[in-house]
């Protein structure tokens, strides 16, 4: 079958893959990675799409048909991503400036917010915004709060935050409008590590109280 994804051209050096079938985004990303297509420079999953950038001089049409080939076929024989993804444990001091506001928005107590945040398994949907900033979604609903009305000009590195149903840790000091609920000492992005970003798309995350 070929209805796994719609492929759109994004200029002459990139393709935007929009999954349409039942296979999830992470599955599409894995297939593309496994296929190691010639001409593909990098693969960037985001909320609902995957951007492929192409090397200089590669034929976009040729890469596009290779992509379609790689995405055709069923997903049933493939290993489930979740079982292959590693888990990262993030110790958090729940001392965020917006913790009380978050509890008020959700109509619950601060203790319940912490219990909810630590009891679920989070999964990195994609990396965006800045180096090492993983958008984490949880295995169940709730904990959905809007961004702050006014964004802060500087959110400190290590801030643990919530917004729009996602949780995230700010890898470095940056402006940001997410609701801050805590702090971690963990370094999310470190150039001295072979893999500088602690989180990549698919990584499972658990927050624990430190």
């Amino acid at each position, binding site marked *: 079958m070929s209805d796994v994804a719609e492929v759109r051209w*994004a200029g*002459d050096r*990139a393709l935007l893959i929009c999954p349409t079938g039942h296979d999830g985004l992470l599955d599409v990303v894995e297939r593309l990675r496994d296929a190691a297509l010639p001409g593909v420079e*990098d*693969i960037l999953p985001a909320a609902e799409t995957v951007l492929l*950038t192409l090397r200089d001089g590669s034929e976009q049409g040729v890469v596009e048909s290779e992509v379609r080939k790689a995405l055709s076929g069923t997903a049933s024989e493939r290993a489930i991503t979740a079982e292959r993804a590693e888990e990262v444990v993030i110790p958090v001091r729940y001392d965020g400036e917006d913790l009380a506001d978050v509890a008020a928005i959700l109509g619950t107590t601060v203790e319940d917010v912490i219990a909810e945040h630590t009891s679920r398994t989070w999964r990195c949907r*994609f*990396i965006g915004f800045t180096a090492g900033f993983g958008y984490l979604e949880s295995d169940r609903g709730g904990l959905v709060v809007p961004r702050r009305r006014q964004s802060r000009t500087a959110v400190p590195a290590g801030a643990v935050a919530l917004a729009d149903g996602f949780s995230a840790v700010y890898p470095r000091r940056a402006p940001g409008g997410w609701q801050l609920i805590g702090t971690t000492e963990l370094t999310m992005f470190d150039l001295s590590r072979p893999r500088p970003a602690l989180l990549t798309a698919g990584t499972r995350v658990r927050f624990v109280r430190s």
Partner: protein
Amino acid sequence: MSGALRILAPGPSATIQDLGRPGWFSAGVGVSGAADTDSLRLANRLVGNDEGAAGIECVLGGLQVEAIEVVTLAVTGAPAPITVDGIPVDHASVVRLESGQRLALGLAATGLRVYLAVRGGLAVEPVLGSRSRDTLAGLGPEPLTAGDELPVGPEPIGSPLTGIAPLTPMTNDPVVVRVQLGPRADWFAQPEDLFVGGWSLTDRLDRIGARLARPGWDGGKDGQQGCPALTRRDSRELPTEGMPLGAIQVPPSGEPVVFLADHPITGGYPVIGVVLGADIPLVAQARPGQQLIFVPEQPRASAVRLADLQITLRGRPSATETAAVIAALTMLTHP
């Protein structure tokens, strides 16, 4: 390694750049690299380097350097006047500086970014495989300041290529760049309006992107000078998605941003079209106030319609007809 080149003055802004660090999207790191890759590549070729060696990218000029050791240099990009110890030197020529000699750049009257390559390449410490300063992510060597001493790598084996340098003429005339519509052109009421009239580059222009405005545009009240505003079909939110180099992203104001080397890798506004890779250096060299004219470039595959093949081959087709058929068939085989 001790420095071979001392920065006496960086000018308005100077950073070290190579061809960037592809392959780090999974860590959230973009490619970065020279904004005008054509000019960096040329400067490197002139001094016999690999095209991707690290050099200096500076804005408008103003850079002054002093040789600590003997160095061979070339300056390309925006044609800033060049002097060596006060004596004028041609743009895009190969210059040898003896120890203690100084090269100074005036300010370019056309173009925006000047590139300086040193034979051997700048040998500062690479970060994730590249010596580029990513101004958005804060990665790579710090922007240059007076007093910096830069190490230079070992001389390449090949001799500098001292033939005629293929320079793109830089003027203050409108710059014409080719754009392929999409991937989110369908989010706009009239995406072709991008090609109607010119856009002017605002002074909000850096390595991240070039923000555009309609000349004389009054905020969309009546779209002066026949230049229509870009309006959305509806006001849905676009879930965050990957942004390619050259993406023309349109925020709710309707005034587009063309993404350059240090652009954010993801974004939440729809991309109406993307500047062709080969034309990115033209955008990177355009100055605030200069006009940008977008012309449509069809993707090759969709450019071929069945009608193109309905060339009746009665009798002996002309060479032109035969060539047209072959061209159309060739394109069809690349669906």
